C-alpha cells in the first residue's frame, strides 16, 4: 500500500475522527475538555497538520503556522504510520514534557481517547465491553468521508478520479444522524464534517444500520439503491467519480 497516502488517511481520517468522537461521546468529551493544547504532526514528505484541543472540542486541520505547544517531527510517512499503529513514538522537537504528559503512556489523554475510539470503531464495543454499535458506524462514516479527500488527492488511481470530480459540493449523509461535505474547489478536494449548504449532489444512507452494513461490506450498494436505502441524486458525474475513489478507500482504512 502506498505509505504516503496511508499517512494522509491516518492523520485526517483516523486521527481526524477524534473530532466527532469527542463531540458525540460524553466520556471522550470529558477527557477532551480538560485539554487545551495544539500539537503539530510534521511528517517529512507527508501530512503537516495540527491536532487542536480547545474548549472541549477537537480539530484536525492542515498546519496554518499558528503557535503550537508540541511539535512532533516524523522522518517519513512510513514512520508516522507506525506511530499511529502504536509501534513507534514520534520525536518531539518542541514540548518534550507536554508530549510525555499528553501522549507518553497508555493513561495519557491522547492515548486513552485514541485507544477507546479505535476499539469502538474496530469492534463496536468500548474497551470495557459496552456496546457502541451506532457510534461505531457513525465514526466509521466520518473516517470514510475524510479518507475520500485524501485518497482522491494522493492515491495514484484515486487522484485520477478525484481530478475528474466536477467543482461543487457533495452532501454525504446518514439521515438525521451524520453529515459531511466533500468539496471540490479550484481543483482541490477537501472534506468538512458538517452539512452542505449548497450541495450539487447527494449520497444519502437511509439509516445508521444501512450505513454500517454498506461500510462493512455486509450488503451491496446496488441492493440498497434499488430498495431506496441508499439514494444518490443530483449531478451524477460528481458521484460517479467519487464512487471510484470510494472503491479504493477501504484498503487504507482497514
Amino acid at each position: 500500500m502506498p505509505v504516503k497516502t496511508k499517512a494522509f488517511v491516518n492523520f485526517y481520517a483516523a486521527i481526524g475522527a477524534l473530532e466527532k468522537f469527542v463531540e458525540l461521546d460524553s466520556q471522550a468529551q470529558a477527557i477532551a475538555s480538560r485539554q487545551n493544547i495544539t500539537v503539530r504532526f510534521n511528517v517529512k514528505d507527508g501530512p503537516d497538520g495540527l491536532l487542536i484541543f480547545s474548549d472541549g472540542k477537537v480539530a484536525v486541520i492542515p498546519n496554518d503556522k499558528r503557535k503550537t505547544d508540541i511539535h512532533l517531527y516524523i522522518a517519513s510517512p512510513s514512520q508516522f504510520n507506525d506511530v499511529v499503529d502504536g509501534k513507534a513514538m514520534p520525536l518531539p522537537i518542541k514540548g518534550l514534557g507536554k508530549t510525555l504528559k499528553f501522549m507518553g503512556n497508555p493513561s495519557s489523554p491522547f492515548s486513552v481517547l485514541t485507544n477507546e475510539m479505535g476499539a469502538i470503531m474496530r469492534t463496536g464495543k468500548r474497551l470495557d465491553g459496552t456496546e457502541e454499535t451506532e457510534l461505531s458506524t457513525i465514526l466509521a462514516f466520518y473516517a470514510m468521508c475524510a479518507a475520500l479527500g485524501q485518497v482522491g488527492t494522493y492515491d495514484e488511481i484515486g487522484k485520477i478520479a478525484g481530478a475528474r470530480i466536477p467543482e461543487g459540493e457533495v452532501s454525504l449523509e446518514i439521515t438525521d444522524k451524520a453529515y459531511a461535505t466533500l468539496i471540490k474547489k479550484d481543483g482541490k478536494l477537501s472534506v468538512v464534517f458538517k452539512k452542505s449548504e449548497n450541495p450539487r449532489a447527494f449520497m444519502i444512507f437511509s439509516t445508521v444500520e444501512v450505513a454500517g452494513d454498506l461500510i462493512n461490506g455486509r450488503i451491496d450498494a446496488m441492493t440498497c439503491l434499488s430498495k431506496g436505502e441508499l439514494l444518490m441524486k443530483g449531478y451524477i458525474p460528481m458521484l460517479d467519480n467519487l464512487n471510484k475513489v470510494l472503491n479504493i478507500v477501504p484498503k487504507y482504512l482497514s
Partner: protein
Amino acid sequence: MKTYSYTKNRELMARAGKFIPNGVYGHLGPAEGCMIPPSAFPFFAERAEGSLIWDADGNRFIDYMCGYGPNVLGYCDPDVDAAAEAQMKKGNCVSIPGSIMVEFAELLTHTVKKDWAFFAKNGGDVTTLSIMASRYYTGKKKIIFTNGYYHGVAPWTQKPDSPGTIPEDCQNSIYIDFNDIGQLKQAIEEHKGEIACFISTPYMHGNFLDNVLPAEGYWQEVRRLCTENGIILIIDDIRAGFRLNIAGSDIHYGIEADLICFCKALANGYNVSALCGKEFLKSAVGGIMYTGSYWMSAVPFAAGIANINKLIANDACAYFHKIATRLTDGFAKIAKERGVNLTISGEPALFYLMIKDDKSLLLHQEWIAECVKRGVFLTNHHNHFVNLSLTPELVDQTLEICDEAMGVMVKNNPQVYR
C-alpha cells in the same frame, strides 16, 4: 393522474440481487445514473409492443428509450418477427453459417455504401475490431477520442480509474474536444507518425451535457486531416445509425468514414452488430482472428434484412425526424408556458433533455421521475429514441403526461418557480 407503484418490480429486484451482480447490471440497471431516484422507475418488463412496455406490476409506459436504441420499428414488429421465425425453422446457430449471411452482407453494404461487412453481436465487439484493424493496418498505436465519448466497455475505452482497468490500457489514448479542429491538428502534430485512428460518434451525444451537432465543415476537415496523415477515420454509429440516415451518419454529415460501426437499430432487437468499411481495410480485418460462438447465427441476419427493408420502404429516418420534432416542439411549448428552462439538444430522433434551473440537475431528475410514475418512460441523463411505431396520438398523450409532471415539479419547488 394516478401514479404507479412497483411492488412486484421490487420483489423481483430483491430476488435478482441474490443471484445476479447488482440485480440488474449495466445501463439497464438503477446504478448508472439513468434512473434517479430508483424508486420512480420500473426494473423489469413483462411484455412490450410497438412503442409501449408493460412492467412486472402491469404498469403501461410509452417508451422513449427503445431498449436504448434497438427498438427502431416497434417492439415485436410483425414483419421482422416473421422473418426471424421463418429462419428459426430452417436453422440458427449451425456448424457453418446460414446462407442468409451473404444476403445480409450484400444488403447492408449496398445500403451503407461500404465495401464489406463483418458481423458480431454487440457494439463493443465491432468498435474493438475497428481499433484492432486500424492498428494492424497502420502499424501505429495511438487512438484519438473526443471527450464525453462512449464506445463500449472494453479496457481500451476506459479511463485508468475504472474498476478492472489498468493504466497501461489507456496509455495510447489521446483525448480532444468534439468540434475542435485546432486540438485535432495539435494532437496530430504532437504524435506525428504514432496515431492509428480517430474514433468518434457522428455528433456528441454524451450524457450530462447538451448534445452537440458537428459544426459546419467539421467532418470535412477531420476527413482531410485523417487522409493526409494516414489516420483511419472510424465513425461509431452504434447509437445514431439508421435513425438519421439509412446510409449511415457519415453520409448524413457529408463524408465517408473508413470504418463504421453499427449495432442497435440494425435488426430491431435481434442481436447482431456490424463493422463496415472500405476496400483497402478488408484484408487487414480478414487477417485478424476475431470471432464468437454466436456471431454467425442466422436468425438475426434474417431479422436484419427484414428490418432494413422496412426502414427503407417507410422512409423511416424522415419519419423519425418528423415525429420527434412534434414531440420536442411540444416539450419546448410546455416548458415555456411553465417558466422552466428546458434545453432540447442533439438530433430530434435522439433528443436529449435537460432542465437547467439548478446546477445539481435535481429539478430535471424530479420532472423525469414524475413523468415515469405517470407512464412515460424517459431516463434522467441519456439521449432518448423514437421508433417507427410511435404515433402522433402517443406523442400527444406523452405531452399531456409530461405537462402534468412538470406542473408537479414546479409546484414542489416554489423557491425556484415563484
